[in-house]
Each structure stands twice: as C-alpha cells, then as structure tokens.
C-alpha cells in the first residue's frame, strides 16, 4: 500500500492533468483555445506513456559499455543481482519503444495542430469570429430569411 502510494502519485497527477486539459477542450467555445486543450491532452498522454517506460535505476536507451567509467558508476549504485537480472550486458536501460511512439506522436501532433489552427483562421475570415456561439448565430441568421420548410415540392 505504501509502495503504491509512493509510486502511484505519478500516474495520479498525470491522469488529473489529462482530465484538466480535456476540460479546457470541452468547455471553451473558442476554436484556438480548443486546439490548445487538444494539444495539452496530447502532451499529457505522452507523459503517461513515458512514465510507463521508466525503469528504476535505468539510463537512457543508448548502448554504453558496462566496463567504461560511466557504466561502472551506473552499476555501482545498484544491487549487482538487480543489474544481472534486468540489465542488458551489465547496464540497466529505460524501455525504448514508448520513446519511439511518443517522439513520432509529438511531430504528428504539431501537424494536426497546424491544420486545426488553419481551419480556425479560415473560420475567422468567413464568419468574423472564432467563437462557436458567434458562428452558430451567423449560421442561424443566414438561414432565417429563407422561408423554412419544403413548400411546393416539384416531384410530389
């Protein structure tokens, strides 16, 4: 239980941050602020992945020689049996796979962010505002002068 609390706080804070950025995304009516919320949500999801990739006592997944000064200094801080069991050739590394996934996700994130913002800029040019309420009002005003309802259907 104590262990779960001592390490679980990382996940708890990250989940709280994910939900806070989702809250920003859901509540605001401003398109730019919505994109900020989405971008933060992506970042916090990345934080969660990288938290899972952490290996206690590990180092960055760039292969080093266990006999070198750095390798020996790393190993000296850890239980030799632990290094033997979880290390690769005498060095304990972090898990590289989540790093790869999140690295590319960040780049894809900026690509989607820029497309979303470009659409927001065009919405501003077409409607004069980026608030969803104003856009809805403009749409309603544009459709009102037309008489509603299909009167005199041609093929009836």
């Amino acid at each position: 239980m104590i262990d779960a609390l001592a390490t679980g706080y990382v996940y708890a804070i990250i989940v709280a941050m994910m939900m806070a950025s989702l809250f920003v995304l859901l509540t605001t009516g401003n398109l730019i602020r919505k994109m900020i919320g989405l971008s933060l949500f992506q970042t916090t999801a990345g934080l969660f992945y990288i938290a899972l990739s952490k290996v206690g006592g590990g180092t960055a997944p760039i292969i080093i020689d266990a006999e070198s000064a750095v390798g020996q200094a790393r190993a000296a801080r850890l239980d030799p049996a632990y290094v033997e069991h979880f290390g690769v050739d005498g060095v304990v590394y972090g898990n590289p796979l989540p790093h790869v996934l999140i690295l590319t996700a960040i780049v894809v994130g900026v690509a989607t962010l820029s497309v979303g913002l470009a659409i927001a800029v065009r919405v501003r040019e077409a409607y004069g505002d980026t608030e969803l309420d104003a856009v809805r009002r403009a749409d309603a005003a544009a459709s009102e002068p037309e008489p509603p309802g299909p009167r005199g259907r041609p093929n009836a």
Partner: protein
Amino acid sequence: MEWTAPLLADPSLLFGAALLVMLAAILCAIVVSRKLLTSVALTGLFTLVAALWYIAMDAPDVAFTEAVVGGGVSTLILLGSILLTRESAEPVSPSRMVFPAIAVILAGVAILYAVGSIPGFGDPASPANASVGRDYLERTYKEVGIPNVVSAVLASYRGFDTLGETTVVFAAAVGVMLLLGFGERALGDPARRHEALNPDLVEEIDHHVVLRVATKIMIPLMFLFGLYVLFHGEVGAGGGFQAGVILAIALIVHALVFGLSETMRAFPAAAMRAGASAGVLIYAGVGVINMLNGGAFLDYDFLFPPPLEQALSGPDGHAGQHYGIIAIEIGVTATVASGITAIFYGFAGRAPDIASRGASRGPESGGGS
C-alpha cells in the same frame, strides 16, 4: 522472484516529482486563464517543463523533440493564429461547465481505477519493460549496429511506421497550404513587403541592429546544429524529426528578423513544396531499392546488392543499415523542414490581411474573401 524497483537509488526521481508538481501548477493556470496570449505562453512553458521531465525519465530523444516542436513550432503557430483571429476567449458560463465537469470527473475516476492494476512506476519486470522493450535493447546492437536504440527502432525496425508519420507531416503541410495559401500575398504587394509579419515592427526594426547582427551569426550555426543532429542521431539523442524542425526554426528566425518577403525570396515556397515531396519520395525510394535488391520493403540489409553489402560491411558490420538509416533520416529532415516552413509561410502570409483591415473594418464585417 519479487523485485521492487530501486527508486531511491535514482536521483532523477526527486527531480521528476518536482517537475510534475510544476506541470500541474502550470496547467491549473492555463485552465483559469482567459487571455489567449497567456494560455499560449503557458502552453509553451508546459511543454518545456515536460521536456525536462522526459530527461528525468531517461528519454532524451523525446525531450529533444518536445522542446523543439512543442516549445518552438507549436507556440509560434499558436501565436500566429491568435494574431489572425482574436486575443481573448469569451468567458464560459458556469452552467455550461456542469456536464463537461461530470464527464471529465467520471472519466478520470475510471482511468484511476484502471491505473490501480497496471504495474508500479519504474517496475523493471512490467510486461512492457521486460518483454518487447528488452528485446529491442538486446538485439539492436547486433542486428543494426548503432548505439541509439530509439533511432534504430524508429528508422529500421519500425521504418514503415515512420514512413507513415512522415507522410502525415507532408499531408498536413499540403492541407495548410490549401487552406491558407503559399504566403504569396506577402510577396504580392511591394508596398507592404516589409510589413508581412508585424506591421508595428516596421518602424522599430531599424533600431534593432543588435538583433540583426546577432541573427546573422546565429542562423548558420543553427543550420550546422541541425545537420549535426541529423547525422549524429545514430550515436546520441537526435534524428531526422528534430533536425528538420531545427532547420525550419532557423528559416523562421530569419523571417522574423528580416521580414517574410526576404526569406521567401531566398527560400521560395515552390522549393518548400518540392522539398516536402522529395523527402517522402527519398524515404519510399529507399524501400523500393531494397525490394529491387531482393529484400523486403525498408529492409536496409538489402540497400546494396548482397556482394557489395558484404564487401562494405566486413565480417560483422551493417553498412546497409547505416546508410539506409541515414538516407531515410535525410528524407524525414527534408519533409519536416520544408513542411513546417511551408506551414509557417501559410500563416505568416495571411498577416497583411490583418494590417489592411485595421480600424476601417470592424471584426463583425469579417474577411469573406
């Protein structure tokens, strides 16, 4: 045998905990802020602190990407879109917050309930860390022959995946160009040439001699650093994505100090379009060469015909892997650098519209071009 992670032997953990608290505090400030400029500045800060936290989690490649992309490019594009739209968000009435708040709290509780049964933080024996991650660590140096396992997984083992991501960047650049144009409006009107980015700065920029002289020295160094990150990505943190963003930022700095039209004359939008497509073509072309030499798509062991591969590699070398990874990283760099510069041109090229609007037209009349 049960193992508990030796977290106390890891000095980066305390550092990481402090950074997490900072991240949470910054996010709270973003939630309550109404000025969009404040939100964007805090978002940039958030990603920079997140980059520091990635360092504490032993993920230097991710930290590097987050710092250049999140702290640099995202912030810049967000600032540009605020300039083109409005500066503050309308306040949200509390009644509209009720349902999102309930949804978010329920989702959070559900995730936290699930988090209770995933392996503990830093657990070396968790399924993710003990099976596939460890497998990559054990095999990379023997099979690919480069020390940076992240680069090897990114470019070689999961090369097809990365081809897809490069294509996403290319598609995003095409999308922004179709929505916002190629920035040609900045070139169109000679009278407004120097006003392209910030009309208020035109008068002042001549006083910024220090800025101009300093950037003239900095920009070649930034290019050099971008190339170093590209070619050093096999050995240390770095790679094509980071290098591409650094090169794009060097061009953007030039545009910010010397004006967009100057940059667009040196690096025309047509060249950026060509560069973005050439990058994807280089990447896919490497895959096709491997197929012509008898291997699978993106199997760099067949980059050269087998006799040449043996002659180049010697007994335990991996010449094909080395050259293949460098080749596709060059493709990634070309696409990312050109694509992000094209996206910047698209946003910055819209700025003269704002300058011409000025006080004559209110926000309600809109653009409608």
